[in-house]
């Protein structure tokens, strides 16, 4: 497995594409900002959203039971799954019981997490992703590079190629409208032919047993209303206590995700439609463990809006595929680390710790703080790697001894200035590979501070402060 740094370097080799990727996501971030600013109570909404999550997740067994009872009373069949294997097995059994061979599937990060598509395909069920971006990804044989904009890394010309090969569109077609129309026609056939629909869930309301799903394309809605079998899959954390709470989360979700006031469709399903069978699969897969970790439980508050990806300077410039976990970016990092500290040890370092993720998070997860804490865990577990460990050890030594620190500073100031740049900017120096040394100051901070304090004392004696006001 290649590290984030290596994969990012490969991504950045295509300079134009990398720049375009960066700009495309920044455009979404700016839309989000305008939308957030248009709601006068935005910050209070974020506070409330977190308070509701805090309450709901601290009382999750009660709310899950309430949700289950209400959904069952409406005629839905509720299942629980501990891990991906159990989740996949349940879904397959349900599909088989109805002899469903073609599934119209809507976007679900949970099913990505569980590897559902591959599992079903292996067992003879054809799964068609119906979200346009997911379909592009599926036909290209890739995985999503973003949780809300899965094909953000693919150019329209490439979509044209993929559609030419699989949907028979004209060669060289790259007009987004015509390509979208072709996908509409192709997927409409699939919707009408599918014996089952599968979708993720945005919110599950305990009070009523309602499953709430947000889409712009209307694909989840066709998928859950047309076939005689519909399966909704959701993580345990999706349950919220009351209908009223939707008024908080829906106001935050689309504005944070894509800078829209609300998604085009927000479906509320309370049990199956007449003549339909509806199943709800509730999955843990490590969520209960996240909630058991004192410093990290807030990661489970996430509503999967993707705002932290759009704003992250590292994500924008390295692309979703440079992260090895199924969910990339800042939120992906703090989720991946629960899965496998060793395997994903480089992810907390794919961050500048600028805190922009925390600033935009609609449920106020302390994302960048958690990233620092994960670095801590990586070091403690001894997964840092030799070069970085050695550098940190040296730094620790210097920080502990004043004299050594001064000597180090002096050396760097005097010596490095006179050395040619290649000594530092070579392949062997990890830090110097893509960075220049800053300009060295003439004297140390200590010396400068001392000189400054002296002049300040003189100034205050003359009755003036630093700005020269009396």
């Amino acid at each position, binding site marked *: 497995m290649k590290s984030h740094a290596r994969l990012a370097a490969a991504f950045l080799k295509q300079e134009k594409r990398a720049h375009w990727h960066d700009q495309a996501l920044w455009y979404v971030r700016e839309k989000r900002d305008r939308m957030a600013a248009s709601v*006068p*109570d935005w910050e209070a909404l974020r506070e409330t959203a977190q*308070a509701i999550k*805090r*309450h709901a997740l601290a009382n*999750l067994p009660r709310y899950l*039971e309430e949700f289950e009872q209400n959904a069952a009373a409406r005629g839905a069949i509720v*299942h*629980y799954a501990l891990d991906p294997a159990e989740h996949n097995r349940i879904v397959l059994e349900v599909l088989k019981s109805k002899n469903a061979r073609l599934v119209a599937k809507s976007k679900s990060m949970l099913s990505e997490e569980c590897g559902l598509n591959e599992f079903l395909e292996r067992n003879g069920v054809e799964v068609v992703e119906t*979200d346009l971006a997911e379909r*592009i990804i599926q036909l290209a044989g890739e995985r999503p590079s973003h949780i809300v*904009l*899965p*094909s953000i890394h693919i*150019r*329209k010309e490439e*979509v044209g190629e993929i559609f030419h090969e699989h949907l028979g569109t004209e060669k060289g077609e790259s007009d*987004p*409208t015509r390509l*979208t*129309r072709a*996908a*509409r026609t192709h*997927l*409409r056939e699939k*919707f*009408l032919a599918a014996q089952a629909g599968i979708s993720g869930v945005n919110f599950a309301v305990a009070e*009523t047993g309602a499953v709430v799903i947000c889409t*712009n*394309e*209307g*694909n989840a*809605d*066709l998928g859950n*209303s047309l076939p005689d079998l519909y399966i909704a899959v959701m993580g*345990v954390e999706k349950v919220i206590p009351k*209908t*009223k709470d*939707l*008024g*908080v989360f*829906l*106001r935050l979700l689309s504005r944070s995700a*894509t800078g829209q*006031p*609300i*998604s*085009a*469709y*927000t*479906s*509320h*399903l*309370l049990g199956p439609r007449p003549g339909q069978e509806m199943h709800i699969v509730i999955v843990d897969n490590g969520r*209960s*463990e996240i*909630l*058991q*970790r004192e410093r990290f*439980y807030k990661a489970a508050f996430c509503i999967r809006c993707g705002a932290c990806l759009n704003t992250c300077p590292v994500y924008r410039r390295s692309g979703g595929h440079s992260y090895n976990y199924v969910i990339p970016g800042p939120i992906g990092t703090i989720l991946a680390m629960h899965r496998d500290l060793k395997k994903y040890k480089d992810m907390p370092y794919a961050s500048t710790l600028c805190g922009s993720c925390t600033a935009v998070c609609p449920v106020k997860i302390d994302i960048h703080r958690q990233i620092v804490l994960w670095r801590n865990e990586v070091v403690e577990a001894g997964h840092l790697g030799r070069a970085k460990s050695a550098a940190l050890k040296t730094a620790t030594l210097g920080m502990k001894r004043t004299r050594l620190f001064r000597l180090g500073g002096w050396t760097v100031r005097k010596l490095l200035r006179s050395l040619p740049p290649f000594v530092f900017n070579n392949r062997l120096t990890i830090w110097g590979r893509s960075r220049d040394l800053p300009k060295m100051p003439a004297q140390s901070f200590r010396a400068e501070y001392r000189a400054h304090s002296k002049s300040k004392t003189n100034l205050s004696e003359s009755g003036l402060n630093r700005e020269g006001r009396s």
Partner: protein
Amino acid sequence: MTDTRRLILDRLRKHAIAGDTSYPAYSHPHAGISDLRRSFQSVIESVGGECRYVADLEAARKVISGSEILTAAKTICSHVKEVAEGNFDAEAKSDAHQCADVDLTIVRGALGVAENGAVWVNADPLRHRALLFLSENLILVIEGRDIVPDMESAYARIDFTRLRSGYFISGPSKTADIEQCLVIGAHGAKSVLVLVVG
């Protein structure tokens, strides 16, 4: 399954969530909307839909009969007979798949939300809820007094006790999945006209 269920619930009881975990008392009305009708209309337009205010159902009928969408539509399914007759009876079809070629559907909406242009459609009176998403075009008819400022006030008015399915629909179906270029008409309606009566 029962074992799994018990195991998951037991694990969830051992959470480490600290601080105040009580259910918050809150209310966040959208204070930034001075003119409900204007805001509702402008948001719908900004999301690619159309919104017209008409005095009564007769005026609504005139708007519809003069619209390009109606002229171009071959198969029309109307659930609001006062504004259009229609020529396709979805209620008579036993299977939603038989509604696949509907060009225009006209239904009533129960609420309009000024902050996001969404219209609440209770799909329970429809035999086939899929019609709302299969139809190439959609006309939603709502009453002028049913425009509320925000989602909080919208949910306060919706009764979920007997509801089976309800939808907020804000403008036409859309996607920006190809290079962030907005394309109207992904899988659902390619156009949405909201007629506000009175």
